[in-house]
């Protein structure tokens, strides 16, 4: 699956490819709960879909579960930020190689 950014009149930019086990995103957790990018399947994909509103309600009702899930999402965000920063360094400082 590819995460893409599309600008009118231009080829979509592939930001990242996702593979088995990867979460697609976390916009469901934080307001305004809107996806920022496009996700396109490159191969047949089996997707596990959860009802975001029900999941948020469950997290509020069970704080222990809510904290554990938020912690896990936080780890994924940090990891993806780390990789994205590395991507940015490699793209913008190519001549230092």
């Amino acid at each position: 699956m590819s995460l893409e950014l599309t600008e009118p009149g231009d080829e979509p930019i592939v930001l990242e490819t996702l593979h088995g086990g990867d979460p697609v995103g976390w916009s469901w957790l934080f307001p305004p709960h809107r996806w920022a990018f496009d996700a396109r399947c490159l191969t047949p994909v089996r997707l596990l879909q959860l009802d975001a509103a029900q999941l948020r309600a469950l997290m509020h009702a069970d704080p222990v579960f809510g904290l554990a899930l938020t912690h896990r999402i936080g780890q994924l965000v940090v990891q993806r930020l780390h990789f994205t920063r590395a991507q940015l360094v490699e793209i913008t400082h190519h001549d230092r190689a």
Partner: protein
Amino acid sequence: MTVLDVPTQGTLTSRPYQITTVRHQTHDIVTIDVAPQQYPIAFRPGQFDMVYVYGVGEAAISISSDPATPGLLSHTIRAVGWVTRALNDLQPGTRIGIRGPYGRPWPLEEAEGKDLVIVAGGIGLAPVRPAIVEALRHRERYGRVVLMTGARSPRDLVFRDDLDRWHADRGIDVHVTVDSAVRGWGGRVGVVTKLIPRVPFDPENAVVLTCGPEVMMWFSAEALLKRGVPPERIYVTLERNMKCGVGTCGHCQLGPKFLCRDGPVFSWPEVAGLLDVREL
């Protein structure tokens, strides 16, 4: 053909070679194939030559060819300075000077009986290419042989013919990624270090060779350590500021190490602390 297997460390004599082929890898990277005008000299994967362009100067360039054919050396060069720009513009038939090979090679013997893992970024695939070729020639000596390689974009990938051939070869697992792409690329997008947690190999029984920009090698080492690869089995190659190639001028000195003489291949514990020090 007589091949000399002689110690060249410390020697400053340049030998004449003639360019036989110029292959354009990308818009700014070429591979030049050169034939000796005298006897070829054997080299080991990971070593480098000082390549001299008459009237311009010389530069340290890793050898990217098959060590089993020292009669046809290859050097892969990106145009970033006076000498490398001049090298990129040379045509077949031009004579250049080469002295070497110099430096500590990749520890392929240590990898025997273990998984051999290579992590290469951009033109960093060139210095490990001889190790890959050598390992595939003696495939039975290793467990898994894994290559993870990345580039800034699809057009920056080097040795694409080799990558396609290795990908089709069941003896090596090849994983390619790019930092950025537009739709139509069809492959992975993301930094090469993102592959390290998920590519199958036995971290406790692996030897890893990494080559690329220092920041990439740093992040790769971090990811490999997190996965459980012992630090002493992670190897990097450092190629900063080499001028004499024989441990005399001091330009490549990094703390107590002369990269040309003590390296360019180092185990991670030997250099991790030194790379952390600014202005060293």
